[in-house]
């Protein structure tokens, strides 16, 4: 019995910890808000949280926590009654309460009882605790919860709220703990049903399993359920298909029925005829007798077969009827579940916001910046799958805003702005199928001129185009891969990849992203995404015998072009639309599909999808445009993380899987496609495929490197060791060399040194690829004159290709 009580207590404590963790997170977010954001509703929600915590603490007999909550509740009740909002002092006390509570949660005996009583008295009166909170216990607090920012020094009372000592839950770890929490919750709630003793828990604690008809379920179970529901759709289609086949089989009997009567009649006549004949010729020979017998057999069989088929016709028609009923039943269930699933998957955007204000504060604190974050419209309901996908882009954009957008307080003073920067996050329904997330900051904004310069340097843009580009269009360059205006790369951002990945994620959802910026006074990023996963539209096309889907938002229109309207100059194709010549490619060329090239038929029109990717208009020639379809976009699985030109895939109603093309990639690939139209400037440069020499003694690595480079569009030549490579270099022209370090005869260092010593190859970029990890080796490589040094253990394709692209 004792054991059982202990176990029960332990479970209760676990459940409490989980609940308290959730509530503390909500409170942390609430206290990250500025004082003037506290309206009656927010105060009420804080009050409720604290009240619930108190109840929960009582249930697990955590006296200290309960005591603190009690005092806190009194203070909040006063605030509530006064209805005059929250003063800075009150907010500061609240934050302190939160901090103290965290300490108590970590260790119930962290604060001596008499000190706690003193605190509680002051809290009840709404007096600030500044100075009275022991600093060593604060330090202890931050030490006990790892990954927390170092405690900021206590400051006088009139400081703005953002550098408060409020400990903030780091968002990074919160995901994990939530996951664990969900697990313990599950265990706890299942216990609840089996153990009657638990029923006596106070309402607040049972509430965590299902207050207000809400349930917590593990996200992965929901995802699994979603897959199953989608599978059911497949079953529905199969059932319908089976029903159709049965109906066809029944219909096949119509033909037989037409002849059935004739055959029966003929058989009957034949039988009568034979009998007559037999009577007429009383005596006849054996031969005739046997023929008669055979005829008789045939006639009998024909009669039997006729009956037999008749039975089968009946059975089949019954089967068809049953199958129709089954198919209809399955369809009703499948459609119902599908619709219900869509509803279940709708979550308020607040789940997306959770943890973000705290994260913003944390980053701001670590950078010595002052930021206030507000959000609105978070009650908007959106498909969970969309929200899942938006979580990291949103975090990234906020991180970016704080890191790059917002200036330091000193700088802001100089610019005549308030010291504390504002970041606003708004959720808005755009139309039935679309919603918008707007992230506004009043920081530096993006500088279009800087973005242009960077894009030119990264060869994302050419100078003529840059000159003609409006500032508004230039701002969108921030979303191009490799363009970051930050001169330093920090842990947070600045690699120039972040916003490109954000854009890709949003586009993958079928959404769009737009940047408006006023240099010096801030920027607004508007992110549009569908509210449901089911509303992604794509144009279905056929290339040879393969189906492909093109996201509809990138397709401007579909054209049928007579052959004579396609201009061909030096193997480059173009067509005219709106009095403007636009480049045209065969989709199969871009995708590198081997096609049976046949001379274009004069009479046949070319089917062209006119694409518009960020203002660049181009045509894609396909074999057939099938039509507009609603698709559910799915990832290609964990092995195909990112495939060039492919966004994902979708499963059609008949079970066929169709790849969905990536419009942005397509345009980029098209520009690199041989014998394809290009902007005049960089045509010559791109026309010749770059030749790369690979020096590598391992067959495996050699083959792998060759495949990687060739699939990236380079011409790769291999050499077995340093001496071979040297010979190859002397006899052929190469644009770059990739070399292993450990090779027989002549190693990578030696080879590099030899290359550098020769005037002809002084400019040849050399990339050393090696298993050697030591810094000395790296230094040795650089000394020998290598341009880059990649360690094989960290050797991923993207990295290698990125480096090669930069060097070429």
């Amino acid at each position: 019995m004792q054991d059982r009580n202990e176990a029960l207590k332990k479970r209760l404590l676990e459940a409490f910890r989980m609940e308290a963790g959730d509530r503390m997170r909500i409170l942390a977010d609430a206290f990250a808000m500025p004082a003037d954001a506290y309206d009656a509703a927010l105060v009420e929600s804080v009050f409720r949280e604290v009240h619930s915590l108190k109840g929960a603490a009582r249930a697990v007999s955590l006296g200290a926590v309960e005591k603190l909550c009690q005092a806190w509740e009194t203070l909040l009740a006063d605030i509530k009654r006064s209805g005059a909002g929250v003063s800075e002092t009150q907010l500061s006390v609240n934050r302190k309460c939160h901090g103290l509570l965290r300490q108590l949660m970590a260790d119930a005996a962290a604060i001596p009882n008499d000190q706690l009583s003193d605190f509680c008295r002051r809290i009840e009166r709404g007096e600030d605790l500044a100075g009275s909170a022991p600093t060593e216990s604060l330090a202890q607090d931050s030490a006990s919860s790892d990954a927390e920012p170092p405690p900021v020094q206590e400051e006088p009372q009139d400081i703005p709220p953002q550098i408060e000592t409020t400990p903030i839950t780091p968002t990074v770890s919160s995901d994990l703990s939530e996951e664990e929490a969900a697990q313990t919750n599950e265990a706890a709630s299942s216990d609840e049903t089996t153990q009657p003793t638990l029923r006596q828990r106070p309402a607040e604690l049972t509430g965590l399993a299902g207050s207000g008809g809400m349930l917590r379920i593990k996200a992965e179970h929901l995802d699994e359920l979603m897959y199953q529901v989608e599978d059911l759709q497949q079953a529905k289609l199969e059932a319908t298909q089976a029903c159709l086949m049965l109906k066809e089989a029944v219909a096949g009997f119509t033909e037989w029925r037409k002849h059935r009567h004739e055959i029966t009649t003929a058989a009957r006549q034949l039988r009568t005829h034979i009998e007559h004949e037999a009577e007429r010729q009383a005596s006849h020979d054996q031969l005739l007798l046997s023929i008669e017998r055979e005829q008789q057999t045939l006639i009998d069989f024909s009669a039997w077969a006729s009956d037999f088929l008749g039975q089968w016709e009946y059975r089949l028609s019954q089967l068809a009827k049953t199958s129709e009923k089954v198919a209809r039943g399955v369809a009703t269930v499948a459609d119902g579940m599908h619709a219900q699933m869509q509803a279940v998957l709708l979550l308020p955007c607040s789940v997306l916001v959770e943890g973000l204000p705290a994260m913003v504060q944390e980053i701001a604190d670590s950078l010595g910046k002052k930021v206030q974050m507000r959000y609105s419209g978070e009650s908007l309901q959106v498909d969970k799958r969309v929200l899942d996908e938006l979580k990291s882009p949103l975090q990234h954009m906020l991180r970016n805003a704080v890191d790059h957008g917002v200036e330091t307080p000193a700088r802001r003073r100089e610019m005549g702005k308030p010291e504390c920067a504002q970041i606003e996050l708004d959720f808005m329904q755009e139309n039935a199928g679309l919603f918008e997330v707007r992230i506004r900051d009043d920081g530096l904004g993006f500088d279009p001129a800087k973005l242009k310069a960077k894009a030119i340097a990264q060869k994302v843009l050419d100078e003529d185009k840059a000159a003609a580009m409006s500032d508004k269009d230039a701002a969108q360059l921030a979303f191009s891969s490799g363009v970051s205006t930050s001169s330093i790369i920090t842990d947070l951002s600045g690699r120039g990849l972040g916003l490109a990945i954000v854009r890709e994620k949003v586009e993958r959802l079928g959404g769009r992203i737009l940047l408006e910026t006023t240099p010096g006074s801030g920027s607004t990023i508007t992110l549009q995404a569908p509210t449901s996963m089911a509303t992604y539209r794509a144009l279905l096309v056929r290339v040879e015998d393969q189906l492909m889907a093109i996201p509809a938002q990138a397709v401007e229109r579909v054209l049928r072009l007579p052959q004579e309207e396609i201009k061909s100059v030096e193997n480059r194709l173009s067509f005219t639309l709106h009095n403007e010549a636009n480049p045209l490619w065969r989709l199969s060329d871009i995708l590198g599909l081997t096609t049976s090239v046949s001379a274009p038929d004069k009479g046949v029109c070319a089917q062209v999808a006119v694409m518009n990717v960020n203002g660049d208009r181009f045509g894609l020639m396909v074999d057939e445009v099938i039509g507009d379809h609603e698709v559910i976009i799915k990832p290609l699985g964990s092995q195909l993380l990112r495939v060039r030109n492919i966004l994902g895939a979708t499963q059609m109603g008949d079970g066929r899987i169709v790849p969905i093309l990536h419009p942005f990639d397509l345009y980029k690939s098209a520009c690199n496609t041989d014998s394809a139209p290009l902007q005049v400037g960089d045509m010559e440069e791109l026309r010749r495929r770059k030749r790369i020499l690979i020096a590598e003694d391992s067959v495996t690595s050699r083959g792998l490197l060759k495949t990687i480079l060739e699939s990236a569009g380079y011409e790769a030549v291999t050499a077995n060791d340093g001496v071979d490579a040297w010979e190859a270099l002397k006899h052929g022209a190469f644009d770059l060399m990739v070399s292993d370090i450990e090779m027989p005869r002549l190693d990578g260092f030696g080879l590099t040194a030899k290359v550098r010593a020769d005037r002809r190859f002084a400019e040849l970029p050399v990339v050393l690829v090696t298993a050697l990890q030591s810094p000395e080796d790296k230094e040795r490589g650089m000394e020998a004159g290598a341009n880059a040094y990649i360690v094989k253990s960290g050797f991923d394709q993207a990295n290698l290709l990125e480096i090669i692209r930069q060097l070429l």
Partner: protein
Amino acid sequence: MKGSTYTDWEALKRNLQQVEQFLANEFNPSPDSARARLQERARELAEPEKEEDESDRMEALVFELAQEIYALEPEFIAEVVPLKPPTPIPCTPPYVLGVIGVRGRIVSVLDLRVFFDLPLKGLSDRNSVVVLSQEGREFGLLTDRVAGIRVLSRKRLNTRLEHLSGVRKEYLLGVTPSHWAVLDAYKLLHDARLIVNDRI
């Protein structure tokens, strides 16, 4: 000089005949010797089962591919599904055969024959896909014919694979006495080289 180039045709003929005879015996053993040999083999196969301890026992899913027999540890196998015609995905490496739908998910199917540089012939029409999955990594392997779960002995795995060549050797746990290649599913699943992550 002549003497040294003299050939003893008779001796050579006898030699050839002997070899011929030997080969004929080897390929057409008499019923008795065949039975004796089979029994011996059966004993060999049966014996270690008795003395092996639990830790030595190793279950494995056995399948054929390119006329060779492979085995995989079942703990990494999510399921085995019959091969529906995979949808080829453009711009993927040649060892990616395409993708198939498995329970509402999309799973890529890899052709190890390409990756291991094996001859591309010898696929029957009984192809299945063995779906490997662990820690969020997942893909399918094309197989020719799945024979089922067999019990192998770890001790008897030959892990000295010098005689093997090519990429394959890196992904083998060992070779059984009956020359089944036991694949290292964990390594396959977690090998960054097999992951396509191609940004442009």
